[in-house]
């Protein structure tokens, strides 16, 4: 998969996530109304939007954790609504998710957290599984002794890194990140951005990132998806800057947006 795709230029590849006509309702309140979205293979897509515009809901619907009121979601070419149990599991082994608070299993050590999907979904020897887990821990930028620790012993930044290492355990094609830099200090957040970028390049990942971190948006995202008016507008940063929509204008031209752009230039 990665090998054959890697030689093609980005724009020729089929979308790995295709959302068509998505409608989400909570009681009388409509969150998404006819939302369309394409995520291309190998790109880093940043998803932004005000509170309550349904960023996390969209993520949950793509992951199959929530069912939309209407619409079609294709993940790696499969319609998520009509998948059989085993086909769904097969697609899920090709996606990795980093939840906002890590969602590490608190009863297991970090290494066991990473080994769990490998144990469940592959028939690798225990020695190789341990070796792969060790490599993932190191690739996520954790010190080697972090593997034997329990999640409660880790700092906030380390929990994110451990969550990232677990999300990468099965070498997924798509990596979903929910607010990956929230709660990290600016240096830690920048280091995490660099980490995601280098992993994305070396592993050939597609990254779907819900974020509010303007620095992440300007530095590592290829395109930015903005949730406004119950739909989504995907464009490169330059095009969003020229967008007259009041929310998009305020978002990218506010003091924080300007500062982040200056910093990235």
């Amino acid at each position: 998969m990665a090998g054959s795709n890697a030689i093609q230029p980005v724009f020729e590849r089929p979308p790995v996530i295709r959302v068509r006509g998505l409608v989400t309702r909570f009681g009388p309140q409509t969150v998404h109304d006819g939302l369309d979205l394409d995520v291309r293979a190998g790109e880093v897509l940043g998803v932004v939007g005000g509170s309550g515009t349904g960023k996390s809901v969209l993520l949950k619907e793509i992951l199959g954790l929530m069912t939309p009121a209407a619409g079609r979601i294709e993940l790696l070419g499969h319609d998520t609504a009509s998948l059989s149990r085993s086909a769904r599991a097969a697609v899920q082994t090709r996606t990795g998710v980093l939840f906002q608070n890590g969602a590490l299993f608190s009863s297991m050590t970090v290494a066991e957290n990473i080994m769990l999907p490998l144990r469940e979904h592959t028939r690798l020897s225990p020695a190789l599984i341990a070796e792969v887990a060790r490599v993932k821990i190191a690739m996520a930028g954790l010190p080697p002794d972090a593997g034997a620790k329990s999640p409660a012993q880790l700092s906030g930044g380390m929990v994110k890194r451990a969550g990232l290492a677990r999300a990468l355990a099965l070498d997924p094609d798509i990596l979903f990140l929910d607010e990956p830099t929230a709660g990290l200090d600016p240096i830690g957040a920048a280091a995490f951005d660099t980490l995601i970028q280098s992993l994305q390049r070396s592993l050939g990942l597609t990254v779907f990132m819900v974020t509010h971190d303007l620095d992440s948006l300007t530095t590592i995202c290829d395109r930015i998806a903005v949730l406004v008016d119950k739909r989504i507008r995907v464009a490169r940063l330059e095009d969003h800057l020229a967008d007259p929509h009041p929310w998009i204008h305020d978002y990218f031209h506010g003091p924080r947006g300007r500062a982040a752009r200056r910093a990235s230039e």
Partner: protein
Amino acid sequence: MRGVAAEQVWIEARPGGTPEGGASLEAGGRWTLDTAAAAAVALDGLRVGTATGMVRLGLGGLQALDTVGACLLMGLADRLTADGWRVAVQEIRPEHAALIEAVRGAGRAPAGHGRSSHHPIIDMVAGVGEASVAAAREARDLINFLGLVTLTFARLWANPSRLRLTSVLHHIEQIGFNALPILGLLSFLIGVVLAFQGADQLRRFGAELYVVNLLGVSVLREIGILMTAIIVAGRSGSAFTAQIGTMKVNQEVDAIGTMGLDPIELLVVPRAIAMMVSLPLLAFYADIMGLFGGAVMSYATLNITFGQFITQLQTAVGLNTVMAGLIKAPVFALVIAMVGCYEGLKVSGSAESVGTLTTKSVVEGIFLVIVIDALFSVLFSMLGV
């Protein structure tokens, strides 16, 4: 795609790959998670020899590579280096090179990674020792905690306006009032069962009336108070641990500390006072309900009227029997409250430890209640009460 055929991954040795001699290895196919098992077999079957010199590792045939494949190939390179070869990776595609660099950057596995294993018997003896030391530590810490709470009590005694009366009343409602239905029902049923079983045995001697003596002594001295203490330890001791533990996880206890307030004074003392007020009252209520259950059953099976029951009860037990039961209540209350609050404050970090320590708090509370009850029995028999 997952589940591809094994032939899709291969590695083979070709002699004399470089001008200086040495060996040449050629790998190809899909070196990914799906084929890793086949790749491991192929690597195991690979024989390069132990000569020194240059070995060429050609990766031009690779169609796909992921972290697992890169791990396997780097493991091979490490093994060859250990055998005295100099490994040169060649014909590598740029996107694979980046991944191999990333895996290489992860470094080598530290030696002695696994847990050292001992003989199972030694492990068992060590486990018993560790558990004993842990139990002794726990006892010491619990007594320390009791001391801390006593000091806080003393401070509050000197300055009673600092006592949170609202909090105390709230906990009395939770521990005492809300426990009345379940405790009443269970005590009543225990009284019924005791009377029924007692009547069955005593009828053989024609001594049915002595069911009242049996009930009076057993319910008032032991069963009423024990039932109460066990139910309260399960209901409220666990609630103390869960409440305080959740506050610990949320850093609320730390927040109390930073506001110049005392967590013991705020969280522990009101619960301890409420427990020591509620438990004797509950125990008395359980006594009455137990006797009532017994009286109902005596009337139903033995035709002992309520009047006869009360007259017989007055001759069978005195005030000191009632007191012998109730005097234990404040002690049990203190034990349950101390264990519940102490385990709650011991919660650290994870939500999982709230669950573990709540279980521990209930088990420890009931254990201590029964042990102390046994000690009271010894004491009472020595005093001739």
